[in-house]
């Protein structure tokens, strides 16, 4: 039977070799994957670890959570949280542990205290004020349009003509 090679696209030999080499190299891609996750001793524990650390700010890279950050401090704190979950502490206790040392700033959800109530309520309060202003402005405009024009005085036509003539 005739070889199907005549159907293959006309590539020069070096290009074909290069293509084959690249294709083979792709087999090595999994080697680039770093940080193999440690074998999950307990998926429920791991899930809780992720849930708790995802709500904690990494203070080194301040726009990342402790769950995401690769900073040393984040790694250490993940270890601490992991140990405390294993020791049976509650979520609240673990959060206390971190805020006792780093302050409330480490929580992504700031607690509702007398100091933070303005932070929590403020946006809604401003929104309500803005809505009130919008409603008042909207209510005023149609009324002005609907108001009938005041009745014309008898000599207004004459005055108007005179004014227009003056301007010219």
């Amino acid at each position, binding site marked *: 039977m005739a070889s199907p090679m005549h159907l293959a696209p006309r590539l020069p030999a070096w290009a074909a070799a290069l293509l084959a080499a690249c294709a083979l190299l792709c087999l090595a891609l999994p080697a680039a994957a770093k940080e193999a996750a440690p074998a999950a001793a307990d998926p429920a524990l791991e899930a809780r670890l992720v849930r708790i650390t995802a709500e904690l700010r990494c203070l080194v890279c301040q726009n990342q959570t402790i769950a995401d950050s690769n900073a040393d401090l984040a790694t250490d704190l993940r270890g*601490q949280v992991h140990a405390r979950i294993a020791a049976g502490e509650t979520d609240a206790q673990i959060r206390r542990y971190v805020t006792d040392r780093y302050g409330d700033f480490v929580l992504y959800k700031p607690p509702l205290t007398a100091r933070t109530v303005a932070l929590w309520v403020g946006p809604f309060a401003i929104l309500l004020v803005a809505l009130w202003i919008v409603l008042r402005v909207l209510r005023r405009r149609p009324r002005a349009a609907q108001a009938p024009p005041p009745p014309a005085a008898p000599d207004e036509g004459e005055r108007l003509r005179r004014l227009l003539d003056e301007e010219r």
Partner: protein
Amino acid sequence: MNIKILRFLVPLGIFLVLAGFLAAGLKLNPREVPSPLIGKAAPGFALARLDDAAQTVRREDMLGRVWMLNVWASWCAACRDEHPLLVEFARRKVVPVYGLNYKDARPDGLAWLARFGNPYEASLFDQDGRVGIDYGVYGVPETFIIDKQGVVRFKHIGPITREVLQSRIEPLLRELNG
């Protein structure tokens, strides 16, 4: 008051309030996280000395003295900036200065002190950083002032500058000591 003038003043007033908040906010440094430890008892520790693994220094050993705890590491570039100032400060013997060698290797830490000078009465070897976490350390160098009762009175994040030393640390030390 004329209703028309009020209409101008209210948005202007709101703008001024917002501008005030912005002005205040721009002066803040978001990387500086205030420490919740100020005014509370310094967290306990029992660490080996960097220069002598057989000797342990405990928090209780420090009671009765005002002292300075400076968190440093041989891998920390910024620590080198403040180090000459610390060496000079320690020479004046105002207060004992103790170091917390944070997440370092013993030979590296000792070599660093040999090379750049040793202002510390002793450096505490906190290899895994647990004591650092207890003290809320997140960016080396950090410096604490702890009073005679073992209460944390002051924390400075970042290298100590002459300005901080003169305007904040020294007055505090005079107050705590005198």
